[in-house]
């Protein structure tokens, strides 16, 4: 009779072309041990595993959750076995396939090494034409470069509890990706009044207009579920690069593309006309408190 231990959902974490960023990020999860106790890790690049890597690449296992990290390159081999064969086998046999990170989701950074053949598991950038098209109902994309550890923890916990993970058109969990990185940004008051940050790393100013910030166009919860539980890129003065979206990585990440001083991309769902009207009027006003250093402002000014 199987013990309770045997009923834990099993995980195989397998890598394609990757920098290990998602693996490292996941290891920073608060209470990682508690989460891992709910699963049996058959194979993982960094965590203690119950099966050897040979048995993974021999395609002799059956797992509940197949996590793929990295860009899919059909010519890449692991253990002298084409990863295309391994991915095909586990995608067919696993109950869930998690494409972890933007590389696995859309091609991401490592698509650039062989753009004509590399892709994500289900998507090639925006286009749904990846190798697992036939298994698409099983696929959950957790995009990000890297992913926030809580995003994977949320997804695994939902699966473990037998609850449905609702996904958006790009197969990302709606609960995590329905908000924009802009939501919760501590610089929102500067965005509203159109006070721009001239340099990186400053506490004051909005990064959207001059520093390339993609937060108003990027589905992510970085300013809602904070990194290391305390911060985010925009909070420390670095622009959001839009790393959860299919067009990542874009060119010139640290500058905003403008046409005659007008941002080429405006906040998601906002007509450009409306944005320009609002921005033009907001720029008319000069709010002293927002134009100087926060610590220098005196309420008696």
């Amino acid at each position, binding site marked *: 009779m199987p013990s309770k231990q045997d009923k834990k959902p099993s995980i195989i974490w397998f890598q394609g072309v990757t920098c290990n960023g998602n693996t490292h990020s996941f290891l920073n999860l608060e209470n990682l041990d508690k989460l891992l106790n709910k699963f049996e890790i058959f194979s993982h690049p960094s965590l203690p595993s119950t099966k050897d890597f040979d048995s993974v690449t021999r395609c002799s296992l059956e797992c509940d959750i197949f996590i793929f990290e990295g860009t899919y390159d059909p010519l890449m081999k692991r253990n002298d076995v084409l990863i295309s064969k391994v991915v095909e086998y586990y995608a067919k046999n696993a109950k869930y396939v998690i494409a972890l990170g933007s590389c696995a989701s859309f091609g991401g950074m490592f698509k650039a090494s062989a753009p004509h053949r590399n892709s994500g598991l289900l998507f090639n950038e925006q286009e749904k034409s990846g190798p697992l098209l036939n298994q698409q109902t099983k696929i959950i994309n957790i995009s990000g470069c890297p992913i926030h550890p809580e995003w994977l923890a949320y997804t695994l916990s939902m699966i473990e509890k037998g609850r449905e993970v609702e996904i958006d058109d790009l197969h990302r969990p709606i609960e995590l990706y329905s908000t924009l990185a802009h939501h919760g940004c501590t610089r929102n008051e500067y965005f509203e009044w159109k006070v721009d940050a001239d340099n990186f790393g400053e506490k004051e100013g909005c990064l959207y207009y001059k520093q390339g910030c993609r937060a108003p166009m990027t589905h992510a919860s970085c300013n809602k579920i904070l990194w290391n539980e305390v911060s985010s890129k925009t909070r420390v003065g670095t622009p959001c690069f839009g790393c959860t979206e299919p067009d990542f990585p874009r060119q010139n990440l640290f500058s905003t593309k403008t046409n*005659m001083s007008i941002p080429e991309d405006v906040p998601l769902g906002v007509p450009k006309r409306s944005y*320009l009207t609002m921005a033009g009027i907001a720029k008319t006003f000069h709010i002293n408190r927002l134009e100087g250093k926060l610590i220098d402002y005196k309420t008696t000014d």
Partner: protein
Amino acid sequence: MARISKEERKTNIISAALKLFSEKGFYITTIPDIAEKVGMSVGNFYNYFTSKDILAKELVMYISEYLGESIRKINDQEITTEKKTYEIVSMYFNMADERPEMIEYFLRVYLSNREVFGDGCEGMICVSPFVTEMMMFFNDGVECGDLHDQDFFSAFGLFMGYLGGMVFLFGEKILPEPLEWYKESISQNIYNALKTR
């Protein structure tokens, strides 16, 4: 006799005020002058506009919305930026010809009496519909590759300063030819200055 609606009455005040302000100047024109021209009592006038300053601001918004709407119709057409440039020049000159009080008001009252428009009409507030459409024109022109990318105000000043100057000369009766005669050459000059090199 059909009763004039409140909205029509308001439009009549706007038309009369535009003419008087642009002909006589902002300070010389009085509310009784405007009321008389519209054919209403001074007391009734205040039911529509509570002060001369408020009327002055409404007039700028009225012109800005008129211009904005006209340029938007041009922006929305599937035509080249060169053609759009001509259409904007043409629309502006037609307006200066047919409704000179609108441009005159803009140039001689709005731009010359900033103290009237400082509170509540500063910056983009009253001219937003017009400036926004010019932004859209430049943005679309760069996006489709017709115009070269540069600072917005450098381009805006070149375009609208040129047109304003020509209309001023026209108003002063200095131009030897009617405005219509200049449409082609001026739109060509503007486009040549803005186009991709």
